[in-house]
């Protein structure tokens, strides 16, 4: 089933694309600065097309099957979004054009800012961050700048629950702050007493994922927020799980001060095999002035004419990347939101939560749920049984592929043994959930009767289990088809 590397189908002299003849006189090339050789592949267009199409067929994707990957919100990516993002006025406008020539783009960004502010309950919004983790960095830098601006320089800690995504502590470290881990209680909430014990004048903020990575809504969220605010710190909301809250509750109303949205989870922009994402960040009134520059503002002239302009917030943390963010993702997200409208956004959350609870009920007593509460958009079960001691969550995940499903996230959150984290999303039909539940129940049976079918899974996929130890040991990270060009300095 394996496909040759593109270099292995290359032949000297072959080419795909012809460019037009040069229609200007040739200038002198800068001798001494030219490269000898450019070792790129030489293939025909058809060879290239077959190569990439064959490779695509080795992938599992939302459009080919159910993808209940917890924490990733693998919902349907509407086709119309792709068409709209490719309209020439959007796709071929340059980010540094005079504002008067890109009013359509700026109007679109402004409208998306307004939608996200209203959905999240925030006063300010930046669309610049490139992804969720980038939004986290932006948010934590804003919190840091806020304290510093008030002359409050002793705040060096960020409190992070033990159920948090790995990006939270990594972001904190990148921002030059210290991580203090807060344990969870027996119902999967932040341990309120442990939190209160850490809240003092050295704390800059709390990073809270709500619903958390167990798929549970924080039952004491108001007390948690009050404790953090009470010591002068701010609450950062990790919006990775916003799909559960659309139209149901606004994080800003719960007292969250800063929150990132993942346009590529909640608002249907495609994950693209790893990216690009888009991580808009919303903030309260008190933090608006610290947003990265620029943000889009609306100016209404005396005659009522509306114009959009890029402005720099007065105390901005600066820019977090070049230009204005992932504009192409903003076009997709706004197209999606407009389909649903004012009342429809809540339908997204309602059906995401309904699907998750239904699936959880279907798995019932066969898979142990360590925190047995009504869940939100996802839930976590244990992939292990005392009477099938050889079987691990990993084996269940691999076996699911034989039944035609993408496995759930496993071994996360870290606080659950052999965790399987399942997020069906609202776009899946009951029949799909039923088929998945049947497969899970069948696998549970196999785990007890024929464990080998799990241990050696998957069988029906184009590739068997891959040797990760070999990859890390031999470390072949690129193919070197020819001798290296022009050696570096001796």
């Amino acid at each position, binding site marked *: 089933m394996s496909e040759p590397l593109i270099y292995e189908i290359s032949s000297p002299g072959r080419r795909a694309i012809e460019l037009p003849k040069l229609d200007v006189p040739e200038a002198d090339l800068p001798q001494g600065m030219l490269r000898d050789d450019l070792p790129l592949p030489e293939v025909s267009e058809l060879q290239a097309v077959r190569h990439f199409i064959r490779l695509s067929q080795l992938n599992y994707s939302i459009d080919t099957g159910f993808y209940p990957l917890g924490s990733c919100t693998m919902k349907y990516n509407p086709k119309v979004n792709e068409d709209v993002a490719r309209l020439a006025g959007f796709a071929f406008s340059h980010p540094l*054009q005079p504002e008067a020539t890109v009013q359509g783009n700026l109007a679109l960004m402004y409208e998306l800012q307004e939608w996200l502010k209203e959905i999240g309950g925030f006063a300010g919004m930046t669309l610049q961050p490139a992804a969720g983790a980038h939004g986290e960095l932006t948010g934590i830098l804003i919190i840091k700048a806020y304290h510093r601006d008030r002359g409050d320089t002793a705040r060096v800690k960020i409190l992070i629950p033990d159920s948090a995504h790995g990006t939270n502590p990594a972001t904190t470290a990148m921002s030059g702050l210290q991580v203090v881990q807060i344990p969870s209680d027996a119902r999967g909430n932040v341990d309120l007493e442990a939190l209160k014990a850490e809240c003092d004048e050295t704390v800059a903020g709390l990073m809270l994922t709500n619903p958390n990575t167990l798929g549970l809504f924080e039952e004491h969220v108001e007390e948690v927020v009050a404790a953090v605010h009470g010591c002068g710190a701010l609450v950062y909301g990790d919006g990775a799980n916003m799909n559960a809250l659309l139209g149901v509750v606004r994080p800003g109303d719960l007292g969250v001060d800063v929150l990132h949205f993942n346009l590529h989870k909640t608002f249907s922009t495609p994950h693209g095999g*790893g990216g690009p994402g888009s991580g808009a960040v919303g903030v309260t009134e008190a933090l608006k002035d610290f947003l990265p520059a620029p943000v889009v503002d609306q100016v209404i002239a005396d005659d009522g004419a509306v114009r959009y302009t890029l402005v720099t917030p007065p105390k901005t943390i600066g820019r977090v990347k070049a*230009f204005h963010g992932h504009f192409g993702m903003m076009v997709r997200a706004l197209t999606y939101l407009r389909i649903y409208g004012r009342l429809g956004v809540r339908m997204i959350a309602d059906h995401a939560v309904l699907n998750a609870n239904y699936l959880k009920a279907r798995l019932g007593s066969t898979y142990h749920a360590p925190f047995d509460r009504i869940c939100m958009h996802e839930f976590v079960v244990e992939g292990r049984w005392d009477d099938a001691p050889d079987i691990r969550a990993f084996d269940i995940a691999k076996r699911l592929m034989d039944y035609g499903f993408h496995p759930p996230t496993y071994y996360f959150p870290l606080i659950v043994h052999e965790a399987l984290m399942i997020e069906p999303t609202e776009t899946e039909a*009951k029949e799909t959930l039923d088929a998945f539940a049947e497969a899970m129940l069948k696998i549970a049976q196999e785990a007890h009767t024929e464990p080998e079918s799990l241990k050696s899974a998957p069988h029906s996929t184009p590739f068997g289990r891959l040797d990760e130890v070999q990859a890390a040991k031999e470390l072949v990270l690129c193919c070197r088809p020819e001798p290296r060009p022009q050696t570096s300095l001796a």
Partner: protein
Amino acid sequence: MSYIPHTEQDRRAMLAEIGVTRIEDLYEAIPDHVRFPELDLPEASNEMDIVRDMEALASSNADSRSYACFLGAGAYDHYIPSVVDHILRRSEFYTAYTPYQPEISQGTLQTVFEYQSLICQLTGMDVANASLYDGATALAEAVSMALSHHHGKRQKVVLSPAIHPHFRETVHTYMRGEDVTLMDEGTLDVDLTAITAAVDDQTALVAVQYPDVFGRIMDFEALGKRAREVGALFCVVVNPMALGMLRPPSTFGADVVVGEGQPLGVPMSFGGPYLGIFATRDEYVRKMPGRLVGETTDTRGQRGFVMTLTPREQHIRREKATSNICTNQGLIALAATVYMTVMGKQGLRQAAEMSFHKAHYAASQIAKLPGFELWNDGPYFNEFVVKAPRPVAELNLNLLSHKIIGGLDLGPWYPSLQGHMLLAVTERITRDQIDQLVRVLEASSHE
């Protein structure tokens, strides 16, 4: 409801299975005084009306399909072969997640491996990661890597002022509140001698851009040597298109090569999504940020690929990770992979050289105009600076009325270059368009 498949019957059956009567019953953990807010948002629309609205918004912009675009400065209007978007539109690529399950993700994994390989060939470096967000954040990550390489013992970072201002601003943001001295514009002259002199044994990293923000091509061999002598990491910010013809940065002794990958088959799309290139030497592989894909074999003896060296990453190492990056630019890296493949060895060089020749033709024609002067005095790639006899914004207004998007007004970025315009030319620009640009500039200079 669009995209939600549930029938009333489904909902009833599912609620019964859960053991509740209404969907509202699922939200009891949420404080009721903030539950179900009235949202002040527009009513639902439909695909047909939305497309019509979006077409109207899009067509209110000027774009490089209806205008000749001479704007560059970090984003370029190169030709994108048709094949590229056909591959990007494959559902199997764009609706997949990060390839955490290698048995059913070899398409993504192998294309990432090929991307890493192509970037290594193009830059001359040993190892490239699977992508970062863009060129600016890639530079910021290079700075972080250098600081951590020196275990916090070196706090000085030298950035050539001729690096794109957005890139430098991004580094400043990432380093906010850190104990780091950034030398760039304001403390440092744009001259290479000054940059070389600023590099000392306290320097963690020195970075230059190639070609620089003004399009200039410089030989950084001496600077690379200086960096090596004092143990500073040497970082070169590249335009990958220029590497189609220019010496790769490895020949200057670069330790890290970063760059904006947008010229490699990615539409300008008003600034993103683009592609952060990050490549380095083998010795830094365990310190580099971002995902890496490596070769291995499966249980059936087939060659396959997996994400590797993941212990550098946030989901394993948490606060000890080399970066917090998780989602990267996967699909855009695929665009660059397909682009480099179909352009190939000859095509990429040809596109680079055509851009070079056309830029030089445009520069020579503009330089002949009374009142205009070419600012660049050495070799340059596809971008150049001209001193204009009238404010750049005024010239650009005139150009727009002739369906031309003019160059960048450098004044706001570099106060000393008030009245200077930065123009970029790609292979998509025709001689007629250049001649028209020159005619309009000439006419508007003595209005």
